[in-house]
């Protein structure tokens, strides 16, 4: 009984500290994320609303417009209001989810983004999962035996792949596997997300989408996984000198067990942060890969906007991409706290 009373307050206290610590922590991170979203909006406003010399000219380019019509458009767009008023309207509209009106599609930007976000999530999600798995595995293997043949091959392959423009790799894969060169027949579809001649539902549709997904996904994985190899390899090597590994070996554990149970969990910590921080690279990859494969996602939407250029649409995709990266960074902070006891204890 006495032992129970002595241990339980300590337990309760420990849990209480954890919980009461977490909420302010989360609150602080949320506030920081909100501030950086606001800063993103300021940057977006400066780029898209203040920098273009004359939006009305751009808007009416190539069409005969009278002076009176120009004035009317200026009033409609609120271009003559004071800057702070325009900024507040812009922030208010963005928070309400109104991202403007696309010149090119004659449709609201929000509805365009909503249509395109699914395919991008599918592509980025698959590519991220595959490249993280491949990158971490290769990184652990080559870090544990750094200097070995395996390490040298893995490291130099990832260095070479990092040095290649994503879109170029995409085009080469397209020529090799979709168009077919020499002995290689045409294996996979060249672009888009599904074949319009096939039924758009059921198992056949899933297989069709998967076939269309192979090349864009492969391109992104090949370019992105190199980052993870480097990060994971470095943190494994950083851990290798640690005394606790010597202790683990002294206990008589096999090399494999030392690696899996002792080195990897510790080395994963810095890698997790880096993985989340590098998700911005995935966004860049999505833009170029989707452009090459006309994958109907947000990246391809950006490309289509860029070709005109359709500024409201570009502004919308810029805000959506930035917001998603900010959310990812927030997630990284929370995940990191759960993974690393040292951060919790602070």
């Amino acid at each position, binding site marked *: 009984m006495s032992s129970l009373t002595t241990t339980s307050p300590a337990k309760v206290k420990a849990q209480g500290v954890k919980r009461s610590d977490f909420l302010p922590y989360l609150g602080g991170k949320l506030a920081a994320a909100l501030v950086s979203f606001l800063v993103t909006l300021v940057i977006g406003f400066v780029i898209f609303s203040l920098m273009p010399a004359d939006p009305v000219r751009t808007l009416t380019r190539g069409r005969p417009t009278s002076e009176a019509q120009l004035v009317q458009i200026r009033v409609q767009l609120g271009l003559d209001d004071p800057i702070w008023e325009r900024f507040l309207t812009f922030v208010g509209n963005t928070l309400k989810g109104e991202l403007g009106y696309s010149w090119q599609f004659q449709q609201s930007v929000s509805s365009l983004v909503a249509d395109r976000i699914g395919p991008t999530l599918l592509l980025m999600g698959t590519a991220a999962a595959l490249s993280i798995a491949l990158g971490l595995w290769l990184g652990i293997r080559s870090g544990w035996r750094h200097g070995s043949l395996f390490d040298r091959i893995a490291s130099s392959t990832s260095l070479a792949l990092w*040095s290649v423009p994503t879109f170029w790799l995409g085009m080469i894969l397209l020529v090799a596997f979709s168009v077919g060169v020499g002995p290689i027949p045409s294996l996979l579809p060249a672009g888009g997300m599904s074949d319009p001649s096939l039924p758009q539902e059921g198992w056949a549709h899933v297989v069709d989408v998967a076939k269309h997904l192979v090349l864009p996904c492969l391109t992104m994985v090949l370019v992105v996984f190199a980052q993870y190899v480097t990060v994971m390899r470095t943190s494994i090597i950083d851990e290798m000198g640690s005394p606790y590994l010597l202790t683990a070996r002294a206990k008589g554990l096999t090399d494999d067990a030392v690696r899996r149970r002792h080195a990897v969990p510790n080395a994963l910590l810095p890698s997790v942060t880096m993985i989340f921080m590098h998700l*911005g690279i995935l966004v860049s990859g999505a833009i*170029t890969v989707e452009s090459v494969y006309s994958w109907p996602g947000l990246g391809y939407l950006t490309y289509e906007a860029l070709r005109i250029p359709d500024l409201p649409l570009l502004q919308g995709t*810029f805000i959506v991409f930035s917001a998603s990266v900010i959310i990812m960074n927030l997630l990284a902070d929370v995940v990191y706290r759960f993974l690393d006891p040292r951060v919790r204890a602070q």
Partner: protein
Amino acid sequence: MTAATYTSAAPKAPRRHAFSRFCRAYAKRPAGLAGLGLLIAFGALALAAPLFIGDDQLNVIKVDGPQLSPPVDGYPLGTDQAGRSILLLVIWGARESLSIGLIATALTVVLGSAVGLLAGHYQGWVGKILMHVTDWFIALPSLPLAISLSAVLGQGAASITIAIAVTSWTATARLVRAQTLAVEARPFIERAKVLGAGNTQIMIRHVLPNVMPLILVSSTLTVASAILSEATLTFLGLGDPTSVTWGSMLEAAFLGGAVTAGAWWYLMPPGIAILIVVLGFTLVGRAVEHVLNPRMVVGR
């Protein structure tokens, strides 16, 4: 008088000595030497290009080669849709691709070093604000920001250069700030302050020379990513439509249906050129990093 000659002569000899020691250490790194060799070869080709490539070979109207032909006699790497030799185009493209990469890097490094020095030296609210701004820019995804900037600024090399600099100065700024803090903690800075050196003098005369080697290392790696960004932005249609760069060749190939035609000979050379140059800068950067600070790069 003797004091003056002493101060001017003293720093020179150790510096020259340090430089020759650096060269000897660098020469022992085969990957670094290979990278340097690649870069020198490409640089020489780019500089010498006007000697053997003229308007006759580049002007779409004046050329008379076969159109979109695989490698044949006289056109070792094949031709593009207009009948221009791919080999000559790649060599000519090196000029603008390399110069945009180098100019964008110079801008990046100047901007980043200035922010980093100021943030490291003025540790009060100025430094805090500067670091907050840096963090905000780090959080922004770089390609969408670069695309937006150069779309608003209009097509062309200048807007691409600005967009690259605006999106990539943050890494340099953080690095320089960290190094500035380390240098300012050393006693000779205190000595300079006691002798009456102002803020500007401390930053320019005392901190900057100590931070310089690090800035040079990071700028080598910045060139590599600037060249990749240049190719990407140009490919997306933000470059000058009349000039020949590796990115614009790939854009022309993509839009002109070289992919559907299976014209691998058109797609390979510009991409391999980018790969070689980026690899060259990365290898040189890593070798220099290794020589200057062997501890920092154990893993990489």
